[in-house]
């Protein structure tokens, strides 16, 4: 039984009646929801409030950071030494690869200049750390510790060492929120690296699974095919690895095959992610308004596109993928 702690005065007869107060506040919150959802008028307010609650995030970080410091300062010397040696090895091999890659990049740029193609490689990156806060267990969103102070902007692509992680949905002064590609409101335009078939990889809400709903049963995909970003959304630059196909099921009576893929980025494990600035002059203008986000801004394409949107994704695979204006960038090694 709850004891009445502070006030034993009668609560009736002070101020407006309970029902009236409820009514006004409910109207206020519904107005707020509409303004936020339909109009998007709340961006500035949200960024301010997010900045204001940042101390809370800092407090939540403290135990984890303390634990990290503790294990770091007590880990033994020999382990650190082996780790160091291993990292040195990796660095050496990576350097050798990078030498080759530099040459290839240069060659690629020259060839592109000859072809007068607009797709470029001019990119800048910044490492951001994922802030360990629970945003919502049912939405695959994470917070990072870089915000508009560092030039982060809404719709910015985010990668890790293995592939595309997601894109920035909200920015405030000192932090930003990322939507992961596995969120069920997110869709990534992809193409099969082997033959250039284009499609859309829709998040499922399961961190290890993406769905490719717009591949016909005749389309040439098979398990272990690599999916790379196609760059058609104007958000993700072309040619970055996204996922590998895990399952293809063709039911002869159906129009579309059931195709599932597994994201390559370590969505559940990564601590650090890479923010990417694509040079705007070298980035092609988004060609099709069909894959532009409407208003779930996070999605690069609506999760369930209307028929008009679905048609390019479904009909194009049968057309020749090597159309002259189609940039096919090789993925970075």
């Amino acid at each position, binding site marked *: 039984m709850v004891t*009445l702690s502070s006030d034993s005065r009668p609560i009736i007869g002070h101020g407006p009646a309970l029902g009236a107060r409820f009514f006004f506040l409910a109207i206020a919150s519904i107005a*707020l929801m509409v303004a*936020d959802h339909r109009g998007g008028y709340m961006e500035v307010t949200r960024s301010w409030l997010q900045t204001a609650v940042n101390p*809370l995030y800092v407090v939540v970080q403290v135990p984890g950071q303390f634990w990290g410091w503790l294990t770091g300062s007590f880990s033994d010397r020999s382990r650190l030494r082996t780790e160091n040696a291993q990292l040195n090895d990796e660095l050496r091999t990576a350097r050798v690869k990078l030498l080759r890659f530099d040459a290839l990049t240069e060659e690629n740029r020259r060839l592109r200049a000859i072809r007068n193609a607009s797709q470029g490689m001019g990119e800048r990156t910044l490492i951001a750390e994922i802030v360990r806060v629970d945003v*919502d267990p*049912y939405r695959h969103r994470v917070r990072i510790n870089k915000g508009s102070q560092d030039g982060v902007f809404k719709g910015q692509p985010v990668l890790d060492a293995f592939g595309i992680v997601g894109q920035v949905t909200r920015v405030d002064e000192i932090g930003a929120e990322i939507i992961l590609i596995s969120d069920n409101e997110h869709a990534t335009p992809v193409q099969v690296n082997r033959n250039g078939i284009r499609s859309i990889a829709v998040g499922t809400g399961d961190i290890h699974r993406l769905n490719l709903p717009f591949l016909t049963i005749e389309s040439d995909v098979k398990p272990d095919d690599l999916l790379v970003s196609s760059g058609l959304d104007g958000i993700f630059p072309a040619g970055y690895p996204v996922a590998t196909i895990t399952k293809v099921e063709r039911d002869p009576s159906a129009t579309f095959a059931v195709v599932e893929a597994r994201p390559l980025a370590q969505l559940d494990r990564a601590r650090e992610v890479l923010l990417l600035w694509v040079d705007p002059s070298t980035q092609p203008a988004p060609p099709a308004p069909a894959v532009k986000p409407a208003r779930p801004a996070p999605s690069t394409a609506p999760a369930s596109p209307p028929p008009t949107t679905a048609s390019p994704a479904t009909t194009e695979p049968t057309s020749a993928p090597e159309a002259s204006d189609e940039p096919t960038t090789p993925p970075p090694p």
Partner: protein
Amino acid sequence: MADGGSSGLRITITTLLALIFAIAPLPDVMNQAKPPLLLLLVIYWSLSAPRIAGLMFAWMCGFAIDVVKGPLFGQHAVAYLLIAYLTHKFQLRMRIFPIYHQTLTVFMLLALYEFVVFWIDGIIGPAVTGWMRWVPVITGTLLWPLLVAVLDTWNRARR
């Protein structure tokens, strides 16, 4: 109301703690079963200190949750408001319920809250329909008697 100030202090402290609990990361399974502690506190303070913890307080708490987690401003705010309204409406009865009866009522309130949030989710986009979504209702209900015991003890000691 000599102790109004101290009661307000208690409300502030517990609210802040609950807000921190709401964003603290737990291991994955526990994260999904995390009880809505702030909502339980709103119910508790609405019963225990209805003049301080009014509808505005509940609305602010819900709005705070919107700021730290929600995809949309006003979603949790309106759900909190509805729960606080029902609690205030039935506070005279709820306060004298035996604890099991009260727990059952809280269970229904939490289920209603989860439903409202789920409903608004469904309006603005594809909602998650897994059964795990309803686990916080159970954990929250189980937490209620404990919360009442702890806070009542504290309130009596500070009276």
